[in-house]
């Protein structure tokens, strides 16, 4: 788990701006000076309302989208450099794999691009398939998979080369409670090995359970960063219309309301 002694920065967003052309005349500001850092070995969770810019931030970090302004550093390299992806595993939101191929085909592809020999990869592929609990569906094409199974298959692909940094966009979306528990356990185990995890999620309870630090994104920038223990120390719990909220929910709503003013 993250401690104050671990200060090596592996991900840096330095005043990052991004505007999309929503239409010929309409422009949408996705990021408006995003600025934060993620330290080595920590689990950093980003939460925020829809359209806050969470996914855009991750896509910029992966080099899929170019920032208009600002610097992004991924383990000392530019995200647009494909070599930086050697140390990174990425799970996109609603992952879409090749429908007619099996999870084995996808993992063989991962093995090939990461320089594994076919002998080395056989055992590794089997272990990963077992890890994500898809051994009964290993030879079935992805198009026959449920959303949750596809999510777990994509996670296996992201974990294949044991990346130092794991970037997850809504890793728990579409998963049933069992699937969610499995993914949480995988992420925790992965973090215990000293790997860094940055992820976005809408499910605040999962974020609260898993993260060392939580960033709340609003209107394209990080409005606040808090540690789960700080949430527990401060009384953020509140009741609205008789509905009890968790400390993170209360803090999240308070921050978003403040930013909207």
């Amino acid at each position: 788990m993250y401690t104050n002694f671990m200060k090596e920065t592996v991900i840096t967003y330095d005043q990052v701006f991004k505007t999309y052309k929503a239409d010929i005349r309409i422009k949408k500001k996705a990021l408006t000076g995003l600025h934060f850092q993620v330290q080595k070995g920590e689990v950093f969770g980003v939460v925020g309302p829809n359209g806050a810019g969470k996914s855009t931030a991750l896509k910029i970090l992966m080099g899929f989208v170019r920032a208009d302004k600002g610097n992004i550093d991924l383990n000392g390299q530019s995200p647009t450099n494909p070599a930086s992806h050697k140390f990174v595993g990425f799970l996109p939101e609603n992952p879409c794999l090749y429908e007619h191929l099996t999870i084995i085909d996808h993992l063989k592809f991962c093995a090939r691009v990461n320089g594994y020999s076919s002998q080395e990869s056989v055992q590794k592929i089997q272990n990963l398939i077992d890890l994500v609990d898809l051994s009964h569906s290993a030879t079935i094409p992805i198009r026959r998979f449920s959303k949750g199974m596809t999510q777990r298959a994509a996670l296996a692909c992201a974990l294949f080369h044991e990346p130092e940094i794991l970037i997850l966009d809504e890793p728990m979306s579409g998963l049933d409670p069992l699937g969610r528990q499995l993914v949480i356990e995988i992420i925790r185990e992965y973090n215990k090995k000293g790997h860094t995890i940055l992820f976005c999620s809408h499910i605040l309870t999962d974020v609260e359970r898993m993260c060392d630090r939580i960033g709340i994104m609003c209107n394209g920038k990080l409005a606040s960063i808090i540690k789960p223990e700080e949430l527990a120390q401060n009384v953020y719990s509140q009741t609205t219309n008789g509905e009890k909220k968790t400390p993170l929910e209360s803090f999240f709503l308070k921050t978003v309301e403040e930013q909207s003013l």
Partner: protein
Amino acid sequence: MNNIFAVISITFKEGLRQRILYGVIISALFVMFFAVLFSGWFMRDISKIILDFCLSAVSVGGLLIPFFLAVNLLSKDIERKTIYAILAKPISRTQYILGKFGGLIALAAVVMSILSASSLVSVWIGKLLYGARFFTDFSLLAFTQAVLMSWLSVAVLIALVVVWCCVTTSAFLATLLTLFTYIIGQTIDDVVRFLSVDTVGVEISATVEKTVQVVKYIFPNLAVFDLKLQAAHNVILPFGEFTTIGMYGVCYCIVALSLAVLIFQKRDLA
């Protein structure tokens, strides 16, 4: 290179698993049957009719790849974000484009090889049924030249599909642009020839002439790759001419793919 081959392999596998081979094999059986059947109606020209029919089938089979599979595999990759599964790995956008192109031309090669083999079987059945004297004109070299050039024209078209898929996010628009390119490529040679001949009473405006000249240099002249007629009449293209046409196709693919890479490097994959 390993990364390019990995993308070629995954593209090829995904294409094959879309069960195109079943369709191609059924088409090959139809071609064999109808080529033999129809050619019997044209005594003396049996060999020409069989070859013309079969080589047309090879071309059409090859064209299915750029028009249907290439747009499907490339445009949908970007549209449905399957591309993230590739680009999240240490693969550059250039390697992705080259890998996709490689996978698609490999698929075209497999499809056209199956149809070519069935064409040769048709010729063999034709010889057995109608007699070898009708096939004295048949040349395997001319047939091979025609098939190779047909494959090269499909490769050029696939390179252009890659360009259009990098330009537009819409699979429909990419298909439409490819269709326009194909029509222009097939007809531009005839249009230029028509304009170069002075016809009494017909005046061509300078703007039209200039436009045609520009189009001629931008779009590929696909008609030069069409050697069906030569193969049907046992005309073997001299090595120099064959190589020149081949180089033209290869150069066009290189230019188109370079353009695609340039566009794709700047594109946001949001």
